[in-house]
């Protein structure tokens, strides 16, 4: 394996470069996946069948907390990659740890929010609107949950095996994934919550 030292560690082998590009292409597919969920959401948003509407369900406070947690985590994972490029392993691990804790906080608030919805009589079986609402939020939440474990595994590997080209590459790709989830959340925040409460 040829290692090119002029590039950051995560790009240093040919295989690493392939993986970064491949993951970007996969993110293109993810854009379409969430695009389809949004298309369905906008189609079904007013089809509440007598059940609760978005305006009745949504509360601004938990949504704002979720938004700021996720924005902050996107910032810290960026700092984590920056620290990695400086070769500061412990700082990197600290930033990754903070990111995952923020992600966990996000999930906590989201689950709390879901429980509230169910208490107000909105389950996934209530109406077309609630079906797609839970599915869209749930798909994003499932991505965050998978990301939590993925990030944890990468932290363990960096701790055990150090900042090798392979680990740096994994960490960088994970950061792409995490930023992407933030982007998706921005659209959920704007076009599901704020539009619904407008």
């Amino acid at each position, binding site marked *: 394996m040829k290692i090119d030292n002029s590039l950051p560690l995560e790009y240093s082998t040919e295989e690493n470069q*392939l993986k970064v590009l491949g993951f970007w292409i996969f993110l293109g597919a993810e854009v379409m996946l969430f695009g*389809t969920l949004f298309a369905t959401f906008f189609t079904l948003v007013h089809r509440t*069948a007598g059940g609760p509407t978005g305006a009745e369900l949504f509360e601004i406070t938990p949504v704002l907390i979720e938004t700021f947690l996720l924005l902050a985590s996107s910032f810290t994972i960026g700092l984590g990659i920056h620290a990695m490029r400086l070769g500061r392993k412990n700082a990197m691990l600290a930033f990754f740890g903070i990111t995952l804790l923020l992600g966990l906080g996000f999930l906590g608030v989201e689950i709390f929010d879901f429980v509230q919805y169910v208490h107000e009589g909105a389950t996934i*079986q209530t109406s077309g609107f609630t079906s797609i609402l839970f599915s869209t939020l749930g798909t994003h939440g499932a991505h965050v949950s998978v990301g939590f474990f993925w990030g944890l595994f990468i932290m363990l590997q960096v701790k055990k095996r150090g900042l090798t080209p392979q680990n740096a590459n994994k960490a960088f790709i994970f950061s792409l994934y995490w930023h992407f989830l933030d982007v998706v959340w921005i659209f959920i925040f704007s076009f599901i919550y704020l539009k619904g409460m407008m």
Partner: protein
Amino acid sequence: MDFFDRFAIPNPSPVIYASMVAIGLTVLAIIAGLTHFKKWGYLWREWLTTVDHKRIGVMYLISALLMLFRGGVDAVMLRAQLATPDAKLLDAQHYNEIFSTHGVVMILFMAMPFIIALFNFVVPLQIGARDVAFPRLNALSFWLFFMGAMLFNISFVLGGSPDAGWTSYFPLAGNQFSESVGTNYYMIAIQIAGIGTLMTGVNFMTTILKMRAPGMKLMKMPMFTWSALVANLIIVFAFPVLTVALAMGTMDRLFGTHFFSTDAGGLDMLWANLFWVWGHPEVYILILPAFGIYSEIISTFAKRNLYGYKSMVWSMVVIAGYSFLVWAHHFFTMGQGALTNSIFSITTMAIAVPTGVKIFNWLFTLWRGKIQMTVPMLYSILFIPLFTIGGVTGVMLAMSAADYQYHNTMFLVAHFHNVIIPGVVFAMLAGLTYYWPKMFGFMLNEKIGKWTAWLLSIGFVLAFFPMYITGLDGQARRMYTYSASTGFGPWNMAAFIGALIMAVGFALIVYNIYYSVRYASRDIGSDPWDARTLEWATHTPVPEYNFAITPQIDSIEPFWDAKKNGQELFKGKFEKIHMPNSSGMPFIMGCIFFAWGFSFVFSIWIPLIITTIGIFVCLALRSFEVDHGHYITVDEIEETETKLRGAN
């Protein structure tokens, strides 16, 4: 016993029991054969755990051929039932099941793996690469496709086949009208195979964008590689839509959600909408690689470079864009207003323009060429007029006002078979014949091959052209019978005879393989067709590492120029080659996915949870695994090269 009741066939018949016995005997025969000839280890080492793109390509090919016959038997049964008015061969339920599985098997488990087989075998060789970008992911893609296909195929002996059509429209596909687990099979088996296909898309886009030999700029890529790049681009952006739609359909059926239901705010036509957002690009995923194959073959056997290379590339890129802009033409009669229909009508007709550009380019390539009428070339020459008729009837269907007459009639059935059979199937058979010597080291018999091509073409015309007439007269598709007073009888009898002729043609392919295995010469060299692109520049059989030295490219047809002008493709000396290791993980994950899908279909929750955990455990293990691959030493390369050069 209640637990086992769910596996019973809802609509049993002697044919199904006979199939059960046949499947059981086949499985036993395979197990006994493998044990008797002591081939289990060979199978595991060389095939089940392989990550070599050439072997994965061959496995895709075998699966596609098997599914071709499975779907073909369905087709003959359908035509037999319709051959005479008021026939009693099949009842309505069995007819529904058979046309549903025929469609799914032919599109998703025959045509898709067939083109992916050719991507796998040809693309890395054409761009001078050692393998695809992610070899292990490639193996996983194959096993997901394979397990999805197998899951779908056991439906007719366990629990019942899907019976809501290959499009599986709601509310028909909902629990109320499709009570058996058949539609669960549809939703979940296609989901598993679809995830595999999506990974293939990511893999091949990365491969083509990053792994081309030095000097091969994008505009110097062979046409088949271009078509593969564009088709994989469409895969990456179309398949997520199917993933979402199938997940919603599954949830509607199993968890009581209201996406496509007719009550509680669901919207049944949303399924049709999402299905075709994926479905229309899907047909271009199939046809563009077919165009790529024809381009290679026509240029090789006209002994001319492809006319209008740039316009060929651009027309494919334009088609890729348009393919996402036309989906509503599949439901012009849904009731949306004239404006919506007009928009989709115009975009649909516009696709004919880039397609026409390609047809003219092929004709200009043939013009004044020194045409060699080999079997692949014969398919290509038959393709041009037959496909053009299919294209023209497509423009007829594109006119939304006129579509009210054609919609859901046999006219439509005739149209899409007219583009898929001469378009895709002929291309795959042509590609199979063309690349067969590179894959297996001997050629298929030309004489039998020509008989096949002519029988398929004549059978095709006889089978499908009558449907244009009965369709215009109002024969609806998916109806299991009709009365004699309609006058459709003779036309449908003609179609049945056509189907039988095609069946003979397909049987001849098997005979051809058998005949050629026994009698064909093994002394054919590495370039039997006197071809033009890189895949013919390496040895036959292709060594594990494809090219001992990475070729240097400076033209569109590097191998041709090397042969004619004596340029040197392989400069430099041998260096050790890095190759990926084999792995059992993709196959094991495929098996877990099969168990996962099976538990899901029958709503057996505990195994479902266990297998879901199993899938994530596999992913986690993969994350922690350290696998740097292995090196092939210079000595080993020299030994292999000397041996292969001697063989030629």
